[in-house]
């Protein structure tokens, strides 16, 4: 019974059946399954399958994002029920599009993919001033700080953010990753970032590698 429920829920996440996932998740709980078991044996493996389908070219961004949405719906049901220490996120990421720039689609894709890969993500939105990055970082102590820009005129702002952290003496407490259309690895190296992602998927791989 529980095995078939687990399988159905896993399939529903992979197949992007958002409405069914919530119902199936509640059914699993009603059947007496532990929240951590649902998470570990069903939801996370489902996202691994989705990741594989994406890598193989069978799934595209809208598919992955729908699956992540289904995952998030279930996770929000399970979260209050998880015991302290039961579940450890892969890491915390603070994301924002830098000051002067309001292009957030790339950042939003990365956000969803990071969530789908077990990261906790704090989204600062767009047009984020260097001070705000510093303030929020002190508040939430993220492992990684991700900055994006679409305009070549705003990408210079990324250096200001990193410099500000250096002045404050907390540069090495966080890993800085950058991304966006006009950027390159060279630019990332020049401003002293810890990593650069060409697209959202590479951003996820980068975040994972920085957590090891």
């Amino acid at each position: 019974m529980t095995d078939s429920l687990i399988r159905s829920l896993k399939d529903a996440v992979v197949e992007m059946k958002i409405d069914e996932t919530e119902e199936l998740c509640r059914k699993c709980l009603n059947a007496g399954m532990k929240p951590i078991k649902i998470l570990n044996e069903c939801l996370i493996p489902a996202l691994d399958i989705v990741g594989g389908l994406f890598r193989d070219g069978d799934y595209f961004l809208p598919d992955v994002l729908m699956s992540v949405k289904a995952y998030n719906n279930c996770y929000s049901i399970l979260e209050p029920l998880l015991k302290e220490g039961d579940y450890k996120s892969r890491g915390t990421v603070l994301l924002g599009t830098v000051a002067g720039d309001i292009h957030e689609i790339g950042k939003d894709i990365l956000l969803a993919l990071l969530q789908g890969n077990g990261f906790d993500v704090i989204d600062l939105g767009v047009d984020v001033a260097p001070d705000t990055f510093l303030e929020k970082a002190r508040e939430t102590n993220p492992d990684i700080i991700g900055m994006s820009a679409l305009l070549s005129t705003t990408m210079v702002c990324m250096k200001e953010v990193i410099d500000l952290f250096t002045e404050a003496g907390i540069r090495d407490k966080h890993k800085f990753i950058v991304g966006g259309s006009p950027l390159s690895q060279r630019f990332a190296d020049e401003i002293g970032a810890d990593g650069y992602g060409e697209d959202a998927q590479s951003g996820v791989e980068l975040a994972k590698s920085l957590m090891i």
Partner: protein
Amino acid sequence: MKSSKFEVLNQQELQTIHQHTLEIFEATGIKVEVKKMREMLADAGCIVDEKTRIVKFPTTVIENYVKKAPREFILCGADPEVQWVINPDTRVYGGLGTLINIYDLETGEYRPTTMKDIENHTILIDHLDYIQSNQMDIWPNDIPMQTIHCETIRFWAKNCRKSFGMGAYGVLATNDMMNMVEIAMGGKENIVDKHPFINIVSIQSPLSTAQIQLEGLMILAERGQPALMSPEAMAGTTAPVTLAGLLVQHNTEVLAHIIMAQVVNPGTPVMYGSVSTIAEMRRGTVALGAVETGLISAAATQMAHFYDIPCRAVAGATEAKTYDIQCGIERQRSLQMVAMAGANYITCVGTTESTTAGGHELTVIDNELIGMLERGIRGIEVNENTLALDVIKNVGPDGNYLMEEHTQKHFRKEHFIPKLCDRDKRDIWEKGGKRDMAIRAREEALKILADHEPRDIDPNVARELDNYAELVANRSLDEFYAAEWDA
């Protein structure tokens, strides 16, 4: 709506070409190189001059017999469940060209074609989504000429679910082909209502016939199998230099062959073909990649549909020698013009050098190109769902559509998703080894070939095919010549 058709002639111009065709038929006639055919045409009401072999066609004969050609027939694959309707409103794509040289898929070396090449090509066609037919796409240099038809049909039957075809090469070979197709399909009754094999009948321009091709046509007609009438008149050498003049001559040649098929056996499925083009005026050679070839093919399509007959047109052809920009421009332009004109059986994917050379990479690339063109022809669907008013309202200013269910539900149908076109950022492309489209196509072709498994066919059928191929292999070339009829 669907994208509008590409047309180059108006109704009155179509009528004019038709009227002038009737005049050429009556005043000049065409040369018919088979005695038996001349006798049948005389019985049908034509005026035959035995000495010159010229046959003149009165208008009544033309009108009576052209309308006997069916509007539609069913094309099927070696797997009879795989079927396509061929009529003036449908569209399929195929190879055709008889390459004699090819770029080796593994080494990139330019070399003579082999039996292995046509085997690989047949496998690729089996797997490529947008190509439905092989024709005599590759001419192998490494096996005796008189066995090519049997070897290729045998391989096709064992490996490809889609359709096949060759040239109508005289009495004995055409009968061989039909016999082997009957064996492959499990008996002659299985190719009456649907046809897995299309024969191309080459026409000798201006206004003549090639003896062995005409004999082949007569055999096909006797057996009720589809024939594709295909002049390759060249404006400036074998046809008037003006395109309208070429069309009159071309139309006469095609209709004459359609009429002959219907005289032999009324109702024989036919296609109005066109490989006509312009001559290269410095050397007198062919120019299939010329923009005028697209115009001629579009006009031929309109003429075919004027008679309510499906049209085969040449496209994807180029005079380029390598996979260069000319190669890309000419194949794309001709495929687009011909597909948008509404031709119904479009050849010659995978070719270069006026269809005498080519490469497997190009077949894979043409497949993707056809996918894009078909998406273009499908046009823009406008309805409540595609107008997405609710979604626009929901997302609102500053939102994004990527996470909307509407996006996930529709993107695969609304967007053509290319396999070979590179849309990555430069960094990713560089990391991936800076591969260009030809290299990506080569990898795709190699993958298809590695994954292919032969069809699971009845062992008795396989044995019969093997026996027939052996019988032909033991025949001498002289026996083929001896089987020809009187000219």
